[in-house]
């Protein structure tokens, strides 16, 4: 056992920090402090900067535009991006689709789709969930029927993140009705401008827009847009999800939240001083801090697990389960810190986040305080998406505890 960071890793962090401080545009950095989702223009600009340095997708193979960093370095890189409040990239493309295309895509698909992803030119969304198939993906019913050199897609996807601004979608579709449920599923890439696609935005509890429904009505998709083998979609989807081993812990996001809470509580007046000096509030914040460090060291354990150690996949349920709870608690604690102002509806002053109304509290001007209420509400979904906590507990019981 040895818990020291290597000098290389320490230098690596310094290098990333220096890069971000030099390259992240000031206006994007300031908007990054706000608790709204980054707007597409900020993300696009930042991805192009990263891409110039070859850092858009560090976890991809170096030959396809990634890097040869080790898992710890990739974690440090993400950690520094969160620290600097840089925009969050197009995760669907970079983190989910990218690794699948790198591994299972044809050379032609790789050449066609990977470069525009790295440069932020084409945005993707993920079409997995359906109204009748949430946590239970195997029961999906969207079908793709072969007709010459096209698939004809019919069906209905839901909870499709960022679909309102996505250019393409990668979807799980049923190409074979005759085999058992998992075996008939294929992985298809679909141009969102195709005829027959309708998008319906689903506004969410934070009054923001990330979720959508997508209806496919006889949408024609060229067969060359099928990834890998027909019927192998289930395996690709499982592969895709294992790439989320440690990111679902959202440790770096929550660390950023703790900094924010300290900032807000240090300025929040109470009858006797400032909230940060209230012993009970300080305990809650310290508890959160302790749990986040416990989670970060759990992430470090998984990052250093031997290649092919499948127990690390199971531990990712631990990370998701606790990470999502901490993420929600952190956002609520930030709101609590702000007192009366913590639950004021506040539209993005930059105008990118659409609230239903502009009746906002004009007293809230601190960048760190902007969007806190929306974040607190949005995070209510953290223990639901990506496999609800109840599902994670069952996975832990079955795969780790073998109950």
């Amino acid at each position: 056992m040895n818990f020291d960071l290597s000098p290389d890793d320490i230098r690596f962090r310094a290098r990333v920090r220096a890069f971000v401080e030099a390259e992240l545009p000031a206006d994007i950095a300031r908007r990054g402090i706000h608790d709204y989702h980054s707007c597409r223009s900020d993300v696009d600009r930042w991805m192009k900067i990263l891409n110039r340095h070859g850092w858009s997708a560090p976890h991809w193979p170096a030959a396809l535009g990634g890097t040869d960093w080790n898992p710890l370095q990739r974690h440090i890189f993400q950690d520094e991006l969160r620290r600097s409040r840089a925009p969050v990239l197009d995760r669907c493309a970079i983190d989910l689709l990218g690794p699948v295309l790198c591994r299972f895509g044809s050379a032609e698909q790789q050449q066609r789709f990977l470069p525009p992803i790295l440069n932020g030119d084409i945005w993707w969304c993920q079409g997995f969930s359906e109204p009748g198939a949430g946590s239970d993906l195997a029961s999906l019913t969207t079908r793709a029927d072969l007709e010459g050199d096209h698939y004809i897609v019919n069906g209905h996807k839901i909870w499709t993140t960022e679909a309102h601004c996505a250019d393409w979608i990668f979807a799980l579709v049923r190409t074979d009705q005759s085999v058992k449920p998992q075996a008939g599923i294929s992985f298809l890439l679909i141009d969102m401008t195709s005829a027959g696609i309708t998008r319906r935005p689903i506004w969410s509890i934070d009054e923001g827009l990330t979720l959508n429904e997508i209806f496919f009505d006889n949408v024609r998709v060229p067969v060359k847009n099928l990834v890998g083998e027909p019927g192998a979609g289930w395996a690709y989807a499982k592969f895709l999800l294992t790439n989320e081993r440690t990111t679902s812990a959202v440790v770096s996001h929550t660390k950023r939240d703790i900094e924010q809470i300290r900032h807000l509580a240090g300025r929040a007046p109470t009858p006797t001083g400032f909230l940060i000096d209230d012993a009970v509030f300080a305990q809650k914040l310290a508890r959160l801090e302790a749990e986040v460090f416990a989670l970060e060291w759990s992430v470090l354990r998984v990052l250093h697990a031997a290649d092919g150690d499948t127990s690390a996949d199971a531990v990712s349920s631990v990370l998701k389960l606790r990470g999502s709870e901490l993420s929600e608690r952190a956002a609520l604690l930030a709101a609590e810190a702000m007192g009366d102002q913590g639950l004021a509806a506040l539209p993005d002053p930059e105008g990118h986040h659409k609230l239903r109304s502009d009746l906002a509290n004009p007293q809230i001007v601190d960048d760190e305080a902007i969007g806190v209420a929306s974040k607190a509400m949005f995070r209510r979904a953290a223990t639901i998406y990506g496999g609800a906590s109840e599902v994670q507990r069952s996975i832990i019981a079955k795969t780790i505890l073998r109950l």
Partner: protein
Amino acid sequence: MDFTLTQEQTALADSVHRFCARDYDAARRQSLIETGTYFSADNWRAFADLGWIGAGVSEADGGFGGSEIETALIMQAFGRALVLEPFLGIAVLALQTLLALPPGEHRNALVAGIIAGDVQVALAHGELASRGDTDYCSSIATQFGEGWTIVGEKSAIHGGATASKFLVSARCTEGIALFLVAAGAPGVSSFAYRTIDNQLVADVHFSEAPAIMIAAPPAAVTAIAAGHAHAMIGICAEAIGSMDELLVLTAEYIRTRRQFGASLSSFQAVQHRMADMLVELELARSTLYYGLANIDSARPQRDHAIATMKAITSTAALFVGRNAIQLHGAIGVTEECIVGHHYRRLTVIAVLFGNEAVHLKRLSMLAMPIWDAQQVEVAF
């Protein structure tokens, strides 16, 4: 003791539920939101005409002879329907603060006007630093000939967005007094905004605003405390109504929704979560009764009941709201699903007039005797 409703109380509760079902369904509520008004003058008129504003007011004060129980029944029904109008701020907090003052010309006229639905008065007392401490007030009143002027910043005033008059707390030499200030008076700037529950509040700034004193220090402090005690019963009752609705909605949903080939309600983890939600709700309901039993008790006893009620109800509200969404899954976090709106309101209620921590701190400061806390007097 009798925990059952009288015939009159049942009739009142039914009447509010009927109104909400007919005139305050989700679609009508949503239209108040989408038009950006968050308030309907017709509804307010109905609240007055149906006798609800004065339901908890004695006949001597122009009301209909009920008590805080009637107010709680109305608020509970409003909680089920997520009524947006500031009944709490005006018909409970401001009105009960006024009622706790000794009779007088201004007080009586304001009370009559509020009950009739003609005047909306908001209590401008809380400040950003208060954080639920009702004794806190940093605004300053200065005598100026016959009248007074007020300087101060009041925060998140309920009913402040639609009120035509403010009842303002401010410090004079002798302590905290209450003043009447017209919303349109010079030196008054009001910033109305929404909280996440789609209710309107206002930050109100007074910059040498002209004012009339309507209660001097000792009476004013007593009245503010009484008004807040009533208001806390109001929001706790509202929370109970909202949680009642969530339990019904969630039970319905999990019975019909199927996953992994079985109805959600057949999963033991789901059943046990629902059981925990019910426990939280029922304990909160019990503290509402504890609060109601002591609304007219002497202060340390009333404070104990109110602080207990608010602490327990705040955590229950967060727990039930959170888990109602959790059991609904993704649909629960959409704007079109009413469950999320209940969560938003319950989250606001949990911090309104002080969160759990504030009220637990109050309980520990009170250090009430454990055995006599419920008996005002043991004849012994």
